[in-house]
């Protein structure tokens, strides 16, 4: 039962949050949308150019290359993170010894800042003094120029991303796993289902809501990757690990073309929106969080 009287009170309670949201999310979002139809270098007056920026974006080969690169990154990181975090969750959900310690260890990277993770991986995968190359050399291989070869640099960025996030989603899966009633498994056991069958027929279908949340959050997280790149590869070698957000930043704050950068932001937001809708459709889950 909720109170129907005192109509003004709840508004006062949400006021501080609403004000900050309006000033720092809603207004900028609308402002950015408006800016995307202008050419503006901050110093002079903005000039209205209609959909000019969008035309430049969609006819720019650099934009399509960056988008493609971003998609390669996202489409590798998301499934990998999904599988790794689910496997970790299954592992630490069983009642083996030291499982609390394992959970903690798996979670450690998820707490570190992307900036620090970038530094750490740069140190480990260093071309000359990296410990990884030391081991490769020691066991008879040829050291690899991890961060100065385009393909390898992308791989390192992908692995670092999965490593950084798997622990967080593991905890989500863990909560999902613990929400599955034990009786289902008992019934399946009586019917002679193998553990493999139990996983595919019970665990995975009942994890669907958790899976969706993980997929949506992880996709958004991957599309907006920025900090990690700054310290791990600075987008290089060349533009090999430069993704959409890096480009937006570059256009806005280094080249000073705020209109073009805003238009790119709108495009990125559209991609994120479409992706989220698509994932909800795919898994067939809507649901009303308010109830």
């Amino acid at each position, binding site marked *: 039962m*909720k109170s129907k009287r*005192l109509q003004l*009170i*709840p*508004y006062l*309670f*949400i006021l*501080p*949050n*609403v004000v*900050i*949201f309006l000033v*720092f999310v809603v207004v*900028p*979002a609308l*402002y*950015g949308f408006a*800016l995307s139809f202008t050419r503006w270098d901050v110093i002079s007056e903005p000039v209205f150019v209609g959909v000019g920026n969008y035309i430049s974006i969609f006819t720019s080969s650099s934009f399509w290359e960056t988008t493609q690169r971003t998609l390669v990154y996202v489409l590798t990181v998301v499934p990998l993170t999904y599988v790794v975090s689910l496997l*970790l969750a299954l*592992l630490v959900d069983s009642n*083996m010894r030291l499982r609390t*310690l*394992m*959970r*903690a*260890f*798996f979670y*450690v*990277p998820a*707490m*570190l*800042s992307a*900036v*620090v993770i970038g*530094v*750490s991986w740069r*140190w*480990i995968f260093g071309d000359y003094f990296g*410990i990884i190359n*030391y081991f490769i050399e020691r066991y008879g291989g040829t050291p690899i120029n991890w961060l100065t070869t385009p393909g390898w640099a992308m791989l390192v960025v992908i692995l670092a991303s999965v490593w950084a996030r798997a622990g*967080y989603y593991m*905890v*989500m899966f*863990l909560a999902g796993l613990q929400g599955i009633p034990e009786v289902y498994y008992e019934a399946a056991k009586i019917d002679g289902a193998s*553990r493999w069958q139990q996983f595919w027929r019970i665990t995975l279908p009942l994890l669907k*809501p*958790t899976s969706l949340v993980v997929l949506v959050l992880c996709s958004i997280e991957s599309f*907006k990757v*920025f*900090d990690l790149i700054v*310290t791990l590869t600075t987008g290089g070698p060349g533009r090999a690990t430069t993704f959409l957000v890096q480009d937006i930043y570059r256009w806005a*704050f280094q080249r000073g073309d*705020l209109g073009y950068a*805003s238009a790119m*932001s709108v495009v*990125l*937001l559209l991609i*994120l929106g479409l992706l989220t809708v698509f994932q909800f459709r795919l898994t067939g889950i809507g649901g009303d*969080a*308010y109830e």
Partner: protein
Amino acid sequence: MNRWVSRVLQAAGLVLAVIFVLPVIWVVISSFKPGTELFAWPPTFWPKSATVSNYIDALNKGNFERYFLNSLYVSTLSTILTLVINSMAGYAFAKFSFKGDRLIFYTFIATLMVPLQVIMVPIFLVIRRLGLYNSLWGIIIPPAATPTGVFLMRQYMITIPDEIIESARIDGASEWRIFWLIMLPLAKPVLTALTIFSFMWRWNDFLWPFIVISNEQKYTIQVAIANFVGQFYVDWNSLLAMSVLAMIPVLIIFLIFQRHFMKGIAITGLKM
């Protein structure tokens, strides 16, 4: 399960867990090596002559103490602000029904889909217009209104029985007093979770301070580290020490509040 299978799994799990923390451990170990040893080939595992000189250098050379204190200041104040305003909003959504409540709540949640990365250009302009450019308040206030926090608070407060509030009202307590003296104490578990998360988010924030701050005196630790990497010649000795110092606060919080971390993620994840 077969005993052998479970033993193999146990061993595999432990090995994997150690591999997971190895990069962190390697950075910590490296940070105690003197310059010559840091670039020795083949590398040594344990530092032969362990030293804290990297830490002393980092603190002296790069004005690092300043950055550390800035981060501490920003994270603490922003977290306090988050706790107050998010729990207020959470209370309103949990215990009142008012015109537009659903719409506003969903709008809050939907902003999770509008990351800062997408609005960084106009944010920069708004921040400048408001005179918050190069001010630590520019990184304290805007991120404080977290949608996740509102969501967490609301989901928890909804489970607190209405009767408690009703009887307080009958006793003549004001809404403000009910919130501070009844709701907040009851919401302590979720407040703890939000405190930890918020502190960690703000401590690890990079893009906000990167956009808002250009004055070197106001750098946060993350911006300082990133700036350090951006230079042509990377001073690994100081950089590794700085990175370890940047990890310490969150690792300490994690060690103390491990349980709350797990619970917090479970709540946000489950009912979204």
